[in-house]
Every structure is written in C-alpha cells, then in structure tokens.
C-alpha cells in the first residue's frame, strides 16, 4: 500500500492484528448492511473473547450469529438481540454477557467515540434501568443522564461503493450504523460491493471520508432478507 490506496488483497490482510479479547464496532441493522465476508473471516480465524458493539447479533446462521456457534463472542453491546436461539441459550447459561443500550444512544456513543467527545448527556433512559448508576443532571429543568462514548480496536463496516482512497457511500437503508462505526475503530475495515477509482464518486456525496478508513476490500454478498414483506403489484 502506498499513499492513500486502502485496498487490501485478502480478508486475512484486512483482519491482520485482530486477537482474542478485542472490541469490535460493527455496522449493520439486523441483517441489512453487514460486512458478510469480514464476519466469515473472523469466524475462520477462531479468535475468542470478543466484545461486539452492534445494534443486533444477527440470526442463528447468519451475520454475527455465526460467531456464536464457536463461542467467539464474550459480550454484546446492543439495543436488540432477539431472533436468535443460540444467543438466548448462551445468554441464559451465563456464557454471553449483554449490555443493552438504547438504539439512539448506541449510535451517538459510536459517533462521539469517533469524534473525540468522551461523553454527552441524553434524556434517553432517564428513570429506567439504563439510567441506573449514571450521573443525572438537569438542563433547563429537565433531567438527563451522562453517557460515555465507545471506541473499538477494530471497526467492521459494509459499504456499497468506495474509491481506493476509502471514500465510501452506502446504499439505501444499508447505511444505518455503518458511518458511525467507521469513525470509531482504531483500525477500520470496510467491505464493499464495488471499488472505483478516486474521482469517480462525487466529493459532496461521500458518506464516510477516507480519513476514517484503514483497509478496504471488495466482497460478494448474499444479502439475506430477515422479513420479506411484499404487496401484490
């Protein structure tokens, strides 16, 4: 790699340096916009004791759920972790730790982590179990709780197109948590459907500027649909 060319040749190269007990920030919402090839590589690497910061944990046989099969995940920081029998089983047996975090707070924690904001106040979760043990402060007569930001050793992100410099755009609602995840990893890996040359993407429409991206790889995606809802034409 020279200059700003972020493209790596293999998934092994993309994930070089990932070891047991690290924290990974993952983009995606349900099975939408998840870095499928990166997850597969983490599975085949067999690293264990991982903490994942991700809105969900996939389903039994897809997405992050795949990493439950070999008990690679120690802890999930998520807003919603249904849809997964293996998850339930490992959670109930105490093998898997779960830190439930409101969805908006989770997104903001990732953004803050990437943006050098160590903590912020939010009304979300005040007076609920989420607020327990957290500082409460009033602004303008309303109580808010203090939430700290999150960063990870790695961030894994799924984009649509990226140029070689790592400027990424996302497709439709596959954007979701990916842009924030991209900012919050010490090493950020982006897996995309298509890699283009610098200059092919409009600078004003870049969702994730290349400064946040360390490694870029082109993948192929199954894009499994969780709830196929259709209407007759």
């Amino acid at each position, binding site marked *: 790699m020279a200059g700003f060319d972020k493209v790596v040749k293999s998934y092994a190269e993309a994930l070089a340096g990932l070891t047991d007990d690290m924290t990974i920030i993952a983009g995606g919402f349900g099975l939408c916009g998840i870095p499928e090839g990166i997850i597969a590589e983490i599975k085949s690497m067999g690293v264990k004791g991982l903490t994942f910061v991700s809105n969900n944990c996939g389903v039994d046989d897809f997405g992050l759920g795949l990493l439950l099969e070999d008990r690679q995940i120690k802890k999930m920081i998520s807003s919603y972790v249904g849809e997964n029998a293996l998850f339930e089983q490992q959670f109930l047996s105490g093998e898997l730790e779960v830190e439930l975090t409101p969805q908006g707070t989770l997104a903001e924690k990732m953004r803050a982590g990437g943006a050098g904001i160590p903590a912020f106040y939010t009304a979300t979760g005040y007076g609920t179990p989420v607020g327990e043990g957290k500082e409460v402060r009033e602004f303008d007569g309303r109580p808010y709780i203090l939430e700290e930001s999150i960063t990870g050793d790695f961030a894994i992100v799924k984009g649509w197109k990226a140029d070689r410099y790592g400027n990424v755009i996302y497709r439709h609602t596959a954007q979701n948590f990916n842009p924030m995840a991209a900012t919050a990893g010490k090493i950020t890996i982006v897996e995309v459907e298509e890699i283009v040359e610098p200059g092919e993407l409009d600078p004003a429409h870049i969702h994730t500027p290349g400064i946040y991206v360390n490694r870029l790889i082109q993948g192929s995606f199954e894009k499994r649909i969780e709830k196929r809802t259709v209407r*007759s034409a």
Partner: protein
Amino acid sequence: MALSREQMAQRVARELQDGFYVNLGIGIPTLVANYIPEGMEVMLQSENGLLGMGPYPTNEELDADMINAGKETVTAIKGASIFSSAESFAMIRGGHVDLTVLGAFEVDVSGNIASWMIPGKLVKGMGGAMDLVAGANNIVVTMTHASKHGESKLLTQCSLPLTGAGCIKKVLTDLAYVEIAEGSFWLKERAPGVSVDEIVAKTEGEIVVPDVVPEMEF
C-alpha cells in the same frame, strides 16, 4: 364493545395532522398508516434511517437494502431521505418528529411507560423505544386496557422497569382514550358501547371522569 386492532389504529389516525412527520412502532401502531385521512399528507419516519417510508415493495421492487425498523422490506416515497442511525436519532431525540405511536405493557398516572422488559422473561432489548419516548413531545400509547387476566395496565405506578419517565400524555386502549395530566388519568372518550363504569373498574390509577364521556364513532 372493545375496539378491534383496526379501530384502535383508526382512532389514533385522528391524531394526525397534515404535514406531520410520524414514527409508528410495531403492531397496532403500524396499522395507523392504513387510516391516514384522505387529502392529508403524513410522512413516516423509520428509525433505522428512512424518512418517507412507502408501502411494502412488489416482488419486482424487493430490495434487501431497503428495510424499516421492524426489518421488513419496504419502499421509499418520492421526496424521501435516507441517513445514518445517528442522524435518525438526532431527529427523534431532538424533538423533530411530530407524533410517535407505540405499544406498552403499562402506563401510570405520572406519565411513566413500561414497554420493554418483563423480569424473569428473556429480555430482547429496548431497540429505539427509549429514545422515541424521551424525544417526542407528542406520543400516543396503544395497548389493551387490561391484561388477559383482567389486570389493569393503567396504574398508579408502573410495576415493570420503565422505558421512559414522565413522558406519556395520551393513551388509547381498546376501551377508552385517556389523557395524563396533573398526576391523573383523564377519561376523554370511550369505545362504542363500553360503559364508564367498566373503564373505571379496569383502571387502577386515579382517573378523572367528566360528566359526559363521548363515545368514539367509526
């Protein structure tokens, strides 16, 4: 008679106004989209990052990259915008959504809501519900008035862990439309053929009953 799910959605739809940005939760709230009054425009926000949610796609339109917060495949209307989860919750937490409709297990006279966790049962998570109730000024909670075992869900104090504190002002149940103010429920409307006595009997928290309680019309 108690309202059907469709009637509940229909009654909630009367809270809509032209030009409202609306977030509809899963279940009965989703049905509200079917009862938007003719000539009125409402834009649906889905907290995974879509403003201007359209109907389900046809088979030809189906796209794995276009889903709603319930993870269903959807479409986007003309004039929609798509953005990150951080931007989506900036909208929600910042109070830019005009109306939020969501379900609950319990509400109480202080405007507290419990909707995500039943101790002893597996907890799947709060998703975006805590942000939605903390961020919206205008929330309608939809739920049955009492549990299957006849226990009231309109309480003096929520017994389940809260989703939000002091944030609920409007509740539509299968029996009544109730507002919350000054530490009480205020009975505003009743389902057709449901007596005030039945509503009061099934409301554990203090409820203020005016002389006349109009019946909802459908």
